[in-house]
């Protein structure tokens, strides 16, 4: 597999995560190829979010390595990982509630901005120039996810579906090369999910690689190039959506032993 290192974006090798006596993830290995949408699926507690947290530096794994384009991410802080182009969203709706939609995205533009503290305090003209550019860029990103009309509204006043879009807008502002989406459509209604799938298509068209954790199987089957299925911290299957749909282990994990036997 490592022979294809030029088009491999992320390599997770032997990842193990324990919380006290509980093993959340056990020697998990998979890779994300440049430009694809890879989905991690599995029942609740399978270790999907733990894997996400380890990749983005929010928890330290007990074993294994995570490498992004050949650079080891282990022991880097979340912000250092973001600097390398790996940006995530959160399972629980996570925005800056007290700020307007456009200010949310402006905070997300942190890595794009080049202002230094002294330049800011001395009020150099370059800072004012950049501020104007950033404001335009923030509106462009809001337009991209379809929230331009909401730019001036407080995040706390937005409906749930739009908050989830705002989260994606904040992540996109950091100009990710690899975007990790943690259950982006959970709690959305079918039409919101459908429009989110369109946005995901446009994110792909930008050349962003996507690693997706999602329970909505319609969405997963519709957008993924490959799927990795976890159960109780281990990878039980991986392959294309059609391969996963017919996989006996996957059916067993989701629906139980009896259902799997009934299929035969």
């Amino acid at each position, binding site marked *: 597999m490592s022979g294809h290192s030029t088009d491999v974006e992320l390599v997770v090798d032997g990842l193990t995560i324990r919380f006290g006596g509980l093993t959340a993830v056990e020697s998990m290995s998979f890779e994300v190829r440049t430009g694809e949408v890879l989905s991690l699926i599995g029942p609740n507690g399978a270790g999907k979010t733990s894997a996400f947290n380890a990749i983005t530096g929010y928890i330290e794994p007990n074993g294994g390595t995570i490498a992004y384009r050949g650079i080891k991410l282990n022991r880097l802080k*979340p912000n250092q990982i973001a600097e390398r182009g790996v940006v995530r969203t959160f399972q629980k709706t996570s925005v800056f509630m007290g700020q307007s939609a456009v200010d949310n995205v402006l*905070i997300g533009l942190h890595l794009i901005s080049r202002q230094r503290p002294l330049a*800011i305090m001395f009020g150099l003209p370059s800072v004012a120039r950049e501020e104007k550019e950033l404001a335009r860029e923030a509106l462009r990103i809001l337009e991209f996810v379809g929230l*331009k009309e909401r730019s001036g509204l407080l995040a706390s006043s937005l409906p749930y579906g739009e908050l989830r879009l705002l989260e994606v807008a*904040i992540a996109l502002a950091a100009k990710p090369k690899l975007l990790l989406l943690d259950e982006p459509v959970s709690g959305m209604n079918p039409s919101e999910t459908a429009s989110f799938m369109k946005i995901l298509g446009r994110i792909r068209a930008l050349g962003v690689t996507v690693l997706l954790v999602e329970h909505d199987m319609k969405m997963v089957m519709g957008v993924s190039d490959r799927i990795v299925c976890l159960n109780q911290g281990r990878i039980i299957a991986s392959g294309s959506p059609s391969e996963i749909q017919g996989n006996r282990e996957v059916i067993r994990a989701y629906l139980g032993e009896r259902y799997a036997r009934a299929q035969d």
Partner: protein
Amino acid sequence: MKHSLTIVWLLFLASVPLWLSNLYILHVLIMTGIFIIAAMSLNLLLGYTGQLSLGHVAFFGIGAYTSSLATLGFAVHLLPDWQVSVDPKPVWFGMLLGTAVAGLCGWAIGRLSFKVRGAYFVIVTISFAEVIRLVALNWVELTQGPMALNNIPYLTLGIPGWFEISFLRKPANYYLVLGVAILSYIVIRRLVRSRAGRAMIGLRENESLAASVGVGVTRYLVLATVVSAAMAGAAGTLYAHYIRIVDPDVFLFIYTVTMVIMVVTGGKGTLAGPVVGGVIFGLLPEALRAFEIGPEIQWVIYGILMVLVVYFLPEGIVPAMRNWWQGRRQAPVADTAPDSATTEAAR
């Protein structure tokens, strides 16, 4: 409209010494101004990063003591047979040094305590202030302890023999404090409306999300602490060269509490908040003296007013005024054409 209002307001402030003949009131204004600068600096930490420094007076006192010692000169035994002596330096240099040393202490405190945040930061800052107070009280050779540093020189600016402005008298000090306050206000405004300020607000509202888009947590908390500490230190140097006597009581906890009251009642996380809160709660004790009531009643009234403000305007005075003003302006428009008005605004 907003610009002209600012200019009128500044002209009014600048004109005060011209028509105010009561020097005592001018003194109260100067002291209030010094505390407003300290409160603004606290607001950068408390209001924008959400970290409460309950030892903020330490930076104020460090600025005051550093500047006083540098301008008075001192000789101190660091080891029994190793004496360090420093000749008196010019006052402007002492004030810059005081500001810088306070900022440096802010850096150290920030680096040490932002590994842990919230309550731990509060405890570290309280302890820091108390330790510094004990040092000031007991290192008599350096600080004169409770005998206080006195005869601190006043600031003079200009070229000797050609022209000189001396900041001995109250009107001159009023303008000095006003100038530093305006400068501090501008620096804070620039910071909070920039990448750095947005990073601080992001950390306050949702630290893990801010980190996920690349905000360095420690970096921006430390930046806020350094700027805040340096500004409080600058206020301390103004105090030292205006009052011209500094004793360990500058580290009293009540001064930190006064700053916190100013920030919280005015509206933390707003630019005007500490100014409004500072004017009200800085001048209130003096205003209450005008009435023929006992001092204990004055402080009871002070306390009651404070509780009322916090109870009825928990966000602070400035945000409450802003909401009220926006509600008033939008109400008539919304009555006539609610839909078109909001979509117009959004575009």
